[in-house]
């Protein structure tokens, strides 16, 4: 499954969650520093939220 984190395409296994996409993008530490993850509509999403094909995430 392909998702995008801050515009970068990230491949994850089916069933993996937002947390895994951030690990792959090497951005999980940013969450520990207080940043948050948002979907393409500007809603915050949880780290264990389900991913969907083509989902666009932004860490800020």
């Amino acid at each position, binding site marked *: *499954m392909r998702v995008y984190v801050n515009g970068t395409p990230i491949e994850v*296994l089916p069933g993996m969650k937002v947390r*895994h996409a951030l690990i*792959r993008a090497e951005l999980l530490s940013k969450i520990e520093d207080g940043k948050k993850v948002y979907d393409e509509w500007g*809603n915050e999403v*949880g780290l264990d939220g*389900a991913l*969907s094909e083509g989902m666009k995430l932004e860490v800020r």
Partner: protein
Amino acid sequence: MEEVGVKKPHIVLCVLWVSLLLLSASFVQAAPTDIRILYVNDFHGFAEAYVPIGSKEPLGGIAYLAAKVNELRKEKPVLLLAAGDMIQGNNWTNLFLGASVIELMNAMRFDAMVVGNHEFDFGQEVLKKGIGEAQFPVLGANVIGLPVLKPYMLREIAGVRVAVLGVTTEEAAIYTHPRNVTGLQFLSPVDAATKYIPKLRERADLIIVLSHIGYAADRSLAEKTKGIDVIVGGHSQTKVAKPAVVNGTIIVQAWEHGKALGVLDLTVEGGRITHFEGRLEDIQPKKGEEDPAVVAIVAKYREKLDSVLKERVGESGVDLDGENVRTRETNLGNLVADIMREASGADGAIINGGGIRTSVRKGEIRVGNIYSALPFNNYIVAVKLTGKQIWEALEHGVSEVEEKAGRFPQVSGMAFRYSPRSEKGSRVKEVWVGNNPVDLEKEYAVATNDFLAAGGDGYKAFGDAVKASRDFSVVGGTVIAEKLVYNDSSRWIRDVVIEYVREKKKIAPRVEGRIREVD
């Protein structure tokens, strides 16, 4: 005459009274009616408040959320809904297979819930038992083969006829072990909604879809399906602070773990919504503001949980070394890697030593010992790696051994020699898989945890294999992907280890020379 005269005024009064009644009834139907939808999703058994990653203060706490529900119930007629994945994800529910959450939801008087993918994680028999104990309907219109799930619920609230249709993700088989969904079919939520909504429209003023398909899919459902008034969603754990409107459908979702309570106030007039306002109520622990009945349930299962952690699962004839897992092969590293390889049927296993946090002393092993040694919520994944990728993974694993980095590998089904004095990137000297030297071109199934499979601790080899496994499909309830061999997010590794020790009763794993230092 008088009798008639007496009767005549009675008849007139009676006609007037009936007319007034009819008139007042027509006023009730036409008059705006306020109702309130309260909702949670993806609770995952987080009964107690906790400090989330990146936060400085505790959030959540179901007793505080319940108190807020009580407060909001006093203001107007309420429907309390749960949009799936209420269980699995926290010891408070996992150790009781979800029963603690059902008791909680009964006490809070939930009106309906849709089944989420994680409700299947403990198997269908456990799910059926939970549904049997629930004092509210559990919905799943697009799940075929489990009759205890009802497609919809009809309820009249303050004179408004409300239909709640439940749909869950059709990819449930991806999120749980195939054995948990054997014999079940998960149809398209859009097809299920298209089938039921015209029928429900005849019997309801308001149609709510209680969904566990994720926010993007909720939006798509609203675009493709006519006649849905409200979608109360879950699965993507999205914090929809203000309701979205797509194709005339209001879409809401309340984040995760009971950290927020969703509130959607609707004014219904003449069978349609004329006004709505929505918000999320942040839930934070405030002493004195909890629901006492719910506090008692949380405390009861906390006590039970503590006693479960003390339960004996078996015995170890040796100390299980979790101290040296970042620098050398240890018997505890071997045990965990062996169990993962065996559970997944893989050729080998590579795990990160940093995933093991403490030792277990010789003697009785209790549940709590395993939980302390393996505290992370990781599950087993097995992917196909080439011999070259295995070599690269091991090379990466030993690249920071002098710094005792958590990436140091513990292995099963394979062995290797390395020199910590060689330059990083060329430390591994020999690798065997099974009894043979590794074939760099051949593919082997290698078990690991989901953290490394996602590329955690810098394990690029797993990430590359995942990248090559992009296309996948669900066939007969099983995920088929080019490089994916095994994927069971329904059980944490520590629970698999506990099950293994319970079965064996006595264990005595040894260091076998799987990882050897050479000059």
